[in-house]
Every structure is written in C-alpha cells, then in structure tokens.
C-alpha cells in the first residue's frame, strides 16, 4: 500500500480516489499506520483504509480467500459512473505495479474524453485509434507493436 501512497499525488491529480481494503479491523489499520506506515511515507497512508472483517466485500469482488481468511491482492479501477473498467488480481507473493495502474487510468480517461481507443502500451501523447469500419485491416498503417513498448 505504501507504493500506492508514494504515488498518491499523481493519482489525485488524475481525480483518482484510492480506497484500500483488508480483513483487518480499523483498530489494526490505526496501529499499522502509527507504528509502521508513518515511518515509510511522510504522514502515513493518505487514503481511507477500509475493513472487511468477514470477507463479505471481498467475496462479491471475487478476491476473498476462504481458506486463508484474507482478501487477495485485487485492484479495481472504477469510473465516475461507478462502472468497473479494469481489474487485476494477484496471489499474495507478487506486488502491484503502480506505473501500470497510472497508465491504465490515463488510457481509460482518454477513451472517456475522446471516444478513441488506445492500443497496447499506449501512453499520453501517443497515437490512439478511431474505431471505424475503415480501420479494419488498416491498423498497420497507423500503429506498430513497437510503439507499445
């Protein structure tokens, strides 16, 4: 969570609100914040830390591990209409990539603002595509896979 906290200013600049959720109680969140997070991120984690103590929220999001009694590492990007645009679920041993999260936010915001679609690896300023029948079979004229790297 501190990796997300460290990039929080960038996310806020994109009008993104972050909510973290685990099966820990809010009391444990408070002690974790005071005991450890504030030593890793100035001021501690700046976003709300939610408690899903019985896993029921994780269940409807498909991330609750009943055997372990915890929520798996799941990340959901939700647009201003409350629609899930992206999700990523990882087993606990591998952490997230905040760069990719921010890239996806930028891409989904571009799509929402312009109606264009973004090819693989798209970043702001790069060519996006206008979906139309004319584009069928003609993507090669305007975009190459190397651009997504």
């Amino acid at each position, binding site marked *: *969570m501190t990796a*997300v906290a460290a990039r929080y200013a960038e*996310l806020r600049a*994109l*009008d*993104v*609100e*972050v*909510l*973290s*959720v*685990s*099966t*820990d*109680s*809010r009391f444990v*969140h*408070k002690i*974790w*914040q005071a005991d*450890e997070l504030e030593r890793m991120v100035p001021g501690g984690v700046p976003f*709300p*830390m*939610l*408690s*899903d103590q*019985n896993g*029921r*929220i994780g*269940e*409807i*999001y*498909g*991330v609750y591990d009943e055997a*372990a009694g*915890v*929520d*798996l*590492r*799941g*990340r*959901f*990007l*939700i*647009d201003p*209409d*409350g*629609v*899930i*645009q992206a*999700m990523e679920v990882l087993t*606990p*041993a*591998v*952490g*997230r990539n905040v760069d990719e*999260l921010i890239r996806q*936010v930028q891409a*989904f*915001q571009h799509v929402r603002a312009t109606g264009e679609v973004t090819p693989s690896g798209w970043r702001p300023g790069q060519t996006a595509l206008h979906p139309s029948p004319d584009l069928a079979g003609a993507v090669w004229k305007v975009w190459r896979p190397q651009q997504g790297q």
Partner: protein
Amino acid sequence: MPENDDGCVSTARGPIGGNAKAAPARQEEREVTAVTARVGAAAPDFEASALVAGRFKNLRLSDYLGHWVVLCFYPGDFTFV
C-alpha cells in the same frame, strides 16, 4: 459522507444490493456469494468501517460516484510485498 466517528461496536453493512446477502448469524449458515464484480458492469456497492485521516468512519463506495476510484484489496496489514 456521514460524520460518525464511531467507537468500538459500530457495525458496517458490507455489500449493499445485488447479490449481496445479509450477514449470516452463524458461520455455518454462510453461503457462497456469487461474484458480481465484472469489467463493464457496475461495481457492487458496500459500506465498510474505515480509518480516515486518523478517525473511524463508515464509508460507502457510492459516496465516490463522480470520481475515479481505485479499490485495492490486500492480504493484511504489516505485510509488505
């Protein structure tokens, strides 16, 4: 958002609407809840207790309509992968 800086015993509703079920009275009554989170579909609403700027509050996902939201689940406090 409600200003309820609650104490020890306040409960949050958890999932709201959709396939959400009321909290079971006993563990053995717990049923498998259908997963309702899918891309392109409405994010299931819920209410949860939270630590917000050092205070305790109940929050709903629907409080954030009109904004982009990143909802991050993680396995537990004091873990650091």
